[in-house]
Each structure stands twice: as C-alpha cells, then as structure tokens.
C-alpha cells in the first residue's frame, strides 16, 4: 500500500508513526506544539501525544543540550531547529557533546538524538534562512548527516534516523517540502542510513547530488541527450563512497552538485574519494556545480547563487566534452 504525500507530510506521518512505535520518543522545539511547526511538520502531533510533544523556549543550545540529557535517561529525543541557520546557536552542544559522547565515554553513554531542521534555499526566505551546512556537520566525527530528496526517502530515512543510537542531523530541503506529491509506502518503512541511491541509471557520466539539488539534477539530465546516471547521496556522513565509486568506474565522468559554497564543500570530499578509488577510470576531471563562495545572498539574488537545472546541464556538458 502506498499513499500520495508531500515531503513535509511524509515527515509528519513518520513522526506520528515513530511516536506510536516508541513510547520513549519526545518531539520538541520552537513552535512545534500548538502551532504544529512553522512548516507544519508537526501539525496536530501534540493533540495525539500531549505528554510527548513540547514547545520550548527560543533557545537552540538548550534544544540540543536537553537531548543529551534525555538520551542519557533512556528517551528518544527528536528535536526541531526551526531553520538550519539557527542551529549555530546550539552548534557547540552538537560538536562538543552530542557527537563525541559515545567516543569519549568508550560507548558507555550515547546520544540517540535526531535533530530535524529545514535547510537550503529557493523559497525566497528571509536572510539567514537558506544556508546548507552539511559539510560542516559532516566534518564532525560521531555525527550522522542525512538529507532526503523525496517523500518516500524522507519517511524511510527519518524512521532510520530516529531509531539510530547515534546523533543524526536530519536536513530537510525547504524547497521540496511541498514541491511534489509522491507515493510513500504505508506502515513500517525504513531506508538504511549511509546508503546512496542510484535514482536514474546511465552510461556516459555520473551526477552526484543530494537534498534540494536532486530534482534540479534530474531535470538537467532529462534535458541532456547523454545517458547520465544520477546518484542521490541521501546520507552526507558517513558517506557511501562505494555507490559513487562503482558508478564512476562505469561512466568515467562525474559531476557533483550542491547548494553550499564550493570551497570546502562536500563535493570536494566526493572528488577525494573518487581520487582514492576510481582515479584511473576517469576520462575527464570531476566537475563541481555548486553555490559560490559568497554568503548566501538575500533572495533577490538567490537564483543567481543557487545551482539550477541549466547550470547543472552545462556542467554535465563540460565533463562529457572534456
């Protein structure tokens, strides 16, 4: 059985089902209760679970730090940071505590927390509501970074994240919250973390993308005459290199796409892993199609910043003609 859902509806449904499944799960964050979240990802959840859905004060460090304590007590904390760009106010709790607790206590204390947060541009939002910081989180050992690109994966990945015994940053692309309605499996549905998906098979080149860039990449590929394989990374860290390497060994050409700034972005890591395990299969330098090394601009200029299908198509043409 499947259900036609938008991505944000799939998130909401998953939270509901996971709360039913796990009585120790607590959902909390700014405006997630009465208001149902500013994107409605927790709509009406509090009506169903009045004792397990909480509005918190506007305090991001607290939202993350509380989860460390809740987890230690045996609860399953699922926190929402209202916009990813505000997670910096709690960044120290992620980096200094949540991510390293298992390691520094040699496995005697873990943080089974999921931090959900809307990220990325393309919705004409206010300043500091559009950043993509997945590379920053991926640079923190002990942290998992998961980014769905469609409703079915949103459900399956979020269920896996919530059930995972380690801290997961779950980045939800705001641009895709309501962009498509797709079939989502009903009932228990999980997608394993750290497994990329080949969402379109091809022979001539590989395009690697994640989150909000996957639909843009797919539409670029559809506009191209070449046969391009598209890999949806799905988990930014720990990264599934094997799927990328296997595809690039087959195609010999690769484009990596992301919204974040180019320097130090995750594309650099993808290129390095190709370098490790598929260099001699390459027929062209790997191309990066990314945001620029500028602070994410206000929305009058966001279309100029954010890769779209045309920019991605040109990137694909460059690797094919190299």
């Amino acid at each position, binding site marked *: 059985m499947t259900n036609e859902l938008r991505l944000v509806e799939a998130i909401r449904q998953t939270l509901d089902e996971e709360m039913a499944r796990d009585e120790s799960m*607590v959902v909390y964050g700014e405006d997630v209760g009465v208001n149902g979240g500013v994107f409605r990802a927790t709509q009406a959840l509090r009506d169903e679970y009045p*004792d*397990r859905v*909480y509005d*918190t*004060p506007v*305090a991001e*460090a*607290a939202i*993350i*730090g*509380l*989860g*460390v*304590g*809740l*987890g*230690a*007590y*045996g*609860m399953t*904390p699922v926190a929402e940071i209202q916009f990813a760009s505000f997670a910096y106010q709690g960044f*120290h*709790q992620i980096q*200094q*505590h949540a991510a390293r*607790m*298992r*390691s*520094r*206590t*040699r*496995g*005697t*204390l*873990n943080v089974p927390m999921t931090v959900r947060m809307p990220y990325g541009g393309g919705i004409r939002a206010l300043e500091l509501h559009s950043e993509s910081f997945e590379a920053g989180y991926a640079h923190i*050992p*002990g942290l*998992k970074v998961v980014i769905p690109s469609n409703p079915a994966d949103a459900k399956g990945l979020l269920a896996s994240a919530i059930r*995972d*015994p*380690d801290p997961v940053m779950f980045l939800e692309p705001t641009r895709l919250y309501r962009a498509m309605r797709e079939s989502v499996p009903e009932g228990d549905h999980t997608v394993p973390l*750290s497994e990329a998906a080949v969402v379109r098979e091809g022979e001539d080149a590989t395009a690697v993308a994640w989150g909000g860039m996957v639909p843009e990449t797919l539409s670029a590929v559809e506009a191209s005459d070449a046969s391009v394989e598209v890999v949806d990374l799905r988990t930014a860290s*720990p*990264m599934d*290199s*094997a799927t990328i390497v296997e595809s690039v060994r087959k195609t010999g050409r690769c484009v990596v796409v992301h919204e974040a700034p180019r320097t130090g972005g995750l594309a650099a890591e993808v290129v390095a892993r190709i370098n490790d395990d598929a260099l001699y299969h390459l027929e062209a330098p790997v191309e990066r199609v990314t945001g620029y090394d500028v602070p994410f601009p206000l929305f009058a200029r966001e279309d100029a910043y954010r890769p779209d299908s045309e920019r991605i198509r040109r990137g694909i043409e460059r690797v094919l003609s190299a």
Partner: protein
Amino acid sequence: MAEFSVEYVQALGEDGAVDEDEAPELDDESLRETYRLMKLSRRADERAVALQRRGELGTYAPGIGQEAAQVGSALALGESEWMVPSFRESAAYLARGTPVHRLLWYALGMEEGAEVAGSNFPPSIPVGSQSLHAAGLGWAQEMAESDEATICYFGDGATSEGDVYEAMNVAGVLDAHTVFFCQNNQYAISTPRRIQTRTETLAQKAVSAGIEGIQVDGNDVLGVRAVTQDALAKAREGDPVLIEALTYRRSMHTTSDDPTVYRTEDEEEEWGTRDPIERFERHLLETDVLDGESIAAIEGEIEETLADEIDLAKAGREEVDPAEMFDYVFAEMPPELRRQKEEWKSENERGGKEEGFERDE
C-alpha cells in the same frame, strides 16, 4: 514589580558554633564518612598535583578548598540520581563512589576515565555547557514522573555563559528536577568574581529564570548538605533550584596555572583560615565524633588507598591500545573508518610491539 531577596545559610560557623536549626541530622558514622571523603579528596588532589609535577600526569584541576561544597552536596544525592559535573569535581565523584584511579585516568589522557559508571556524567570541559544536560535529565525525570532529581555542578565563571541561563530558564518552564549547584570559588582562572558580573550575588541569577536561588557558606559542609537536601526535595517535585556555594579555590586553576600572578598571599591566607576540612575537623573533635587516634587511622587508610589507586592508574595507562580510538565513534563502524583503522594498524603495528611502536612516552 517583582522583588527578591537572597537567603544565606550557614550551619557550622567559622568559630565552630552550630546552628541547630540549619544543621542536617546526621549520625556519627555519616559525619565520619563525610570527613573521610573530604580528606581523601584533599590528599588525592595533592598527590595528583605532585604526580603532574613529576611529569607522570597530564593537566589536572585540583578542587582544594572546595571539599565541603562538593562532598556535602554530592552526599545529599540518592545513588541512582544523576550527577552532572564540570571538570573540577573530584570530591563529588569520590563521594559518589568513583575510585581515584578513574579520576587519574582522565588526567592521564585516557577516555577510560570518562566512562560512565552509575548515574554520573563524564567531566565536561566547555564551561557551563553541561548545565543543559542536567536540565534534560531533570526534564526526563519530570516526564517519567520520577521522584528523583539531578544535580549539576559549575563555577562562578559559568554563570556568565548563555548555556547556564538557558538551562535554568528551560528547567523552570519544563519543571525539570534539576538542582544547579554553583561553586563560587571566586576565580575563573584569573578573573575575579567581582568582574564576572555586576550582580551582587550569583544566586540571584535564578530570579531571571523564575526559579529559587539560595546562598550557602560553601566551606561549611553541614550547611551545604542541608541546603542541598532541601533543594533536591523541591527539585524532585519539579521545582528547580540554584544554589550558590561561597567557597575559595585554594590551589591553582589547573596545574598549568600560577595564581600568584593575579592574587595576593594575604588573600590566600585569609581564606586559609576558613578551610573547610579544618573547620569540620575542629567540630568533630569538639563533639567527640573523632579523636586524634581515629583521625590518624583515617589518614593512614587514605594513604594506603591512594598508593594502591595510583598503582592501578599507572597499570591501566600501560594497557592503552591507541587503535581503540576508532572503536567508539559510532555504534557500528562505517567502512571509511574501518579503512582508516586498518591504515593506522598497518603503519604502526608492522613488526609487532617490540619495534616501531612505543606504548609509553
């Protein structure tokens, strides 16, 4: 307009007088155990500093002078209740039954010393950040309708951190079962209390979070015990409390610090006359709970314990396997990490432990 006042509690005065209204009811055995733990902590700190000076220990943060604040408060906590420390809580750990060698392991740079045993959090290095974990534990206790509570330690400097305010504020809103125990030891490394904040007391920081704040003489172990017992009783019902224990860090911030740069000998001597162990010892002698003989017996036992524990710590250091740093990052080791571990092993264990791999410095 809201008005507030801050109560100050002292049960055992510097002159040895006991305020019976404030003192907790403790039998002689409990009083002797309190004394023993304070002495054990003092001697463990002294031995640790000496080991560091001989190059046998890494950086260490002694709590000398703060034994009453820590032992008095930690003993008020139930065994399965949670203790969330900062990085100077050796005395509190010892009062919670943590063996000395585990504290030394942490100072030997070993994660083994931060393993969680019982309901004690590992040490927290970033100032004040652990207060939010204690708020989370206290909130979990409230949601679980538990009749238990959590105590969190931090210092005067931490009260300037946003995390501590956030922790007290959310604890208030969420009815967390949390006692925030601030040891005002007068210094944040070199920065004296008077330029940490313009507020007259640190206890009044509670007012802005809508929770109760109280001051206690932190060098009075009986007063600390009583105030903490009361605070825990309130916290167990969902009313968090901030305690400010007025004490003095008689030693250095850490073994890397030289306090003579920023404070005077006169000041140190003045606080020396208020030493928490000496005050309590005088009281126990005057009330015949202890005599010279029993004190000597306790001291002898402590020296034996410390000798054994230091041996255990050193033996554990010899067992450290560096490759284990890869093992606890995630519940399951990802392929890339497995690869890095193999890389490390192939570069460091070629030819076995006899050649190419030094286990000790």
